[in-house]
């Protein structure tokens, strides 16, 4: 990673310096004037300092530029002559440009890093707040129902007992779902930003998701469309499974009036595009932006604290997809309903035959 960047920076520096040199030669030929020469080199040094990482490229290019001006563009031509005062002055100016641009540049980079960090921090905070709030409801109900059962066991008619037990089960299932999501978040947390990716066969991923989904929602049919050929995609399959699961369940819980739920994957260049779409009620316009940040729910949540909270599931999706170096988007379909979309890099194709 570091090496690659170094290579890129070096290449870039050489390219810019080379172009500056070439432009100068051209100008010298065309206009027979030298006033532009230092300016063009200064511009080159500025560009290099701006685009590369660290000080050394800028400073090196400044020094080399001074030599170049001295060597090729000042009389006597093609001889080094350091006793010209101009060249010392221009060296100082170029160095100053290189150093100040690089300083500014690294400061901006630091700030960007900080911003990304605090953005991540904020997202995590939102998630935690939302989740802890949401854990309380089912726990209260589980605790209450089980206490009631124990203390009033003989007084309660059998169907009442079964009803309470059923509620306990239902709330536990909800808790399980919640904790799965929490686990996913902690999996992508930690020191490393990137997740551990292993090549996963698309067929098998989709199969696995559908099996799990149909176990939980046996009555909901999912229409699938995936490419015919063998496709493997580097990913953390557990996490992507969670994303697809969350998106499908989100449709089941929120897309009112849905009759058709679709999961499709298509290949576009070196990317695999995943789409979960439904023909339900669609998303409110003001939700489209905020839906993945976990902040939407609080303002728009029904007062009864309904547990079918989509905020958490979707912000977990966003976090997972982000950790895979991509983004998730939501939009409304023209014919009604919503579509959620994200793309994953397919990675380089080397076959193991």
């Amino acid at each position: 990673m570091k090496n690659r960047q170094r290579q890129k920076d070096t290449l870039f520096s050489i390219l810019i310096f080379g172009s500056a040199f070439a432009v100068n030669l051209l100008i010298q030929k065309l206009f027979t004037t030298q006033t532009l020469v230092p300016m063009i080199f200064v511009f080159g040094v500025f560009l290099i300092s701006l685009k590369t990482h660290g000080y050394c490229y800028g400073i090196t290019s400044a020094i080399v530029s001074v030599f170049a001006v001295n060597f090729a563009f000042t009389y006597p031509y093609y001889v080094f002559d350091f006793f010209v005062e101009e060249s010392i002055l221009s060296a100082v100016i170029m160095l100053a440009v290189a150093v100040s641009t690089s300083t500014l540049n690294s400061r901006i980079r630091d700030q960007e890093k900080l911003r990304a960090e605090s953005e991540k921090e904020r997202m995590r905070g939102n998630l935690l707040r939302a989740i802890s709030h949401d854990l309380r409801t089912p726990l209260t109900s589980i605790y209450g129902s089980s206490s009631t059962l124990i203390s009033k066991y003989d007084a309660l008619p059998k169907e009442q007992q079964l009803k309470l037990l059923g509620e306990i089960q239902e709330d536990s299932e909800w808790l399980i779902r919640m904790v799965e999501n929490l686990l996913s978040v902690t999996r992508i947390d930690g020191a490393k930003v990137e997740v551990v990716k292993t090549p996963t066969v698309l067929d098998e991923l989709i199969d696995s998701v559908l099996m799990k989904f149909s176990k939980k929602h046996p009555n909901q049919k999912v229409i699938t469309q995936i490419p015919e050929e063998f496709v493997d995609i580097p990913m953390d399959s557990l996490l992507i499974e969670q994303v697809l699961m969350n998106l499908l369940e989100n449709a089941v819980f929120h897309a009112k009036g849905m009759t058709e739920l679709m999961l499709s994957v298509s290949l576009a260049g070196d990317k695999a595009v995943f789409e979960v779409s439904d023909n339900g009620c669609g998303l409110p316009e003001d939700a489209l932006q905020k839906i993945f940040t976990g902040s939407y729910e609080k303002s728009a949540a029904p007062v009864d604290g309904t547990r079918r909270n989509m905020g958490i599931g979707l912000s977990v999706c966003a976090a997972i997809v982000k950790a895979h170096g991509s983004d998730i988007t939501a939009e409304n379909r023209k014919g009604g309903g919503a579509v959620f979309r994200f793309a994953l890099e397919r990675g380089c194709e080397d076959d193991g035959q």
Partner: protein
Amino acid sequence: MGNNKYKILIVEDEANIRSFIKANLETSDYQVLCAETCALGMMMYASHHPDLIVLDLGLPDRDGMSLIQEVRKTDTVPIIVLSARSNERDKVEALDLGANDYITKPFGTEELLARIRAVLRSHRHSEEKESSPGGKFRLQDLLIDYDTRQVFVGKEEIDLTQTEYNIMVFLSVHAGKVLTYAAIIRAVWGYSDYGSVKKLQVNMKNIRKKMGVTPGEKRYIINELGVGYRMLAEDE
């Protein structure tokens, strides 16, 4: 009480989990033994010779893996591992050490019972098969005839390559058991190198295609993502 009941040993340190598994198994007509540590589990195993072990990996005294190792030195008794979700490596390690199946916490009792039934059944079958290879394997409308080396889905014969057929045989002989990528590769190719997992996956894709299986259908072979494959037991 009849003595022909299956004896199941549960090694799990959480009392609540132990108690609900025990209650469930007993009402399903199994005889249940419990141990809360690895050491106790080993002792119970040695003195009672259970027909199946349900093993939690996170035990207070020693890692559950060591119990699998210990048992596998001498015995093929089926072992079902209870594992936490987020760790494929644990699952693969347990399976490679000789566990028959794993079930991810939290699990439903129905699921556990189904796995127990499947593992017990396939264990019985594979013991028979090991002594006399040949005969036929039937699963839903799938039929594998080991003698003529033919595979049918319904009435139709499926034209498999040599490798594909070998994979099918290996999976079917161990139907009900999760087989890791490494185990299948070892059995089918005899060696493994870089890219052999992909080679296996491509073969599996072709097998699925030839049998006309589309994703989401619970037919013949279950994908255990990142772990391996499992052919369904005969009447699962």
